């Protein structure tokens, strides 16, 4: 789907989110000389077309209690990638699971998953389980120790 000017303006204006007030869409509708209903319909359409993953609140994971945030990197033979990906995806605590290109000689880990849990014990329990279910023993745990930036994706 092609986004038009109105869609782009909506995404751009809501980069920092909607205002927390009784009629959060009214201000933007006025600025764009349109109606709240139209703004909402555009949002709905972008959701339908899956231009948007969702419309809603993003939580500050550390602040709400997810203190252990870990990127686990794995070396997984090609014929096991599919299985491992499915196993990883099955955990509620895992938000992302990918296969990525490697850089021979520099970076040989080809699978990545992000685990968010209240503590490191929980992260390690999940990793052990994945290890048992896939038979993959070659991995590293990269905890995030400091957040340098966290925002939302932009349209440019």
């Amino acid at each position, binding site marked *: 789907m092609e986004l038009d000017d109105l869609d782009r303006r909506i995404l751009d204006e809501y980069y920092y989110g909607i205002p927390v007030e009784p009629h959060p869409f009214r201000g933007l509708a006025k600025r764009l000389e349109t109606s709240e209903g139209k703004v909402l319909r555009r*949002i709905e359409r972008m959701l339908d077309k899956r*231009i948007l*993953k969702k419309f809603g609140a*993003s*939580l500050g994971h550390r602040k709400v209690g997810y203190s252990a945030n870990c990127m686990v990197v794995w070396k997984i033979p090609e014929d096991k990638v599919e299985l491992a990906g499915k196993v990883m995806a099955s955990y509620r605590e895992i938000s992302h699971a990918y*296969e990525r290109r490697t850089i021979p000689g520099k970076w040989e880990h080809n699978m990545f998953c992000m685990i968010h849990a*209240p503590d490191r014990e929980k992260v390690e329990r999940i990793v052990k389980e994945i290890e048992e279910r896939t038979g993959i023993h070659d991995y590293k745990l990269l905890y995030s120790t400091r957040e*340098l930036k966290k925002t939302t*994706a932009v349209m*440019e």
Partner: protein
Amino acid sequence: MKEAKMVIEDVDRKLMMEMQDHFPRSVTPFKEIASRLGLTEEEVLERTRRLQEKGMIRRIGPILNVRRVRQRVGSLIGMRVPGQRLDEVAEVINQFREVSHNYIRNDEYNVWFTISARGQERFDEILDTIRRETGIDDILVLTTIRYFKLGVRFDLERDF
């Protein structure tokens, strides 16, 4: 963090879950949430503002599905940065709106961020600028081959 659990009231927990998972697309969304949770609109607005101030809610709004946007070129990047240069290097990386996440991690490659740019040219330009302005060349560009799961959803009811 056990303390965090203690300080989040049940109502706030429910409110955050509702706003994460089922935010109403209505002209008066907070009023609708209030009626679902048996609160007043005023109370929902007040609690939401407080949760935002505390950083528990980062933002409420549209979350772009970058893979559905044409010409989008993105990657995870790992970089090896000397400990004493972390802040200065972070500043260089973070100047780009196309960088949405950037974390220090416990590995020899200690700085990990994502770039999602419009077109290969812009992507290369950002990476070149980071190389030039930091003088650091030990950079891993790890593009996705396929993904099995994408999308954060926190379950405050079950995870704690």
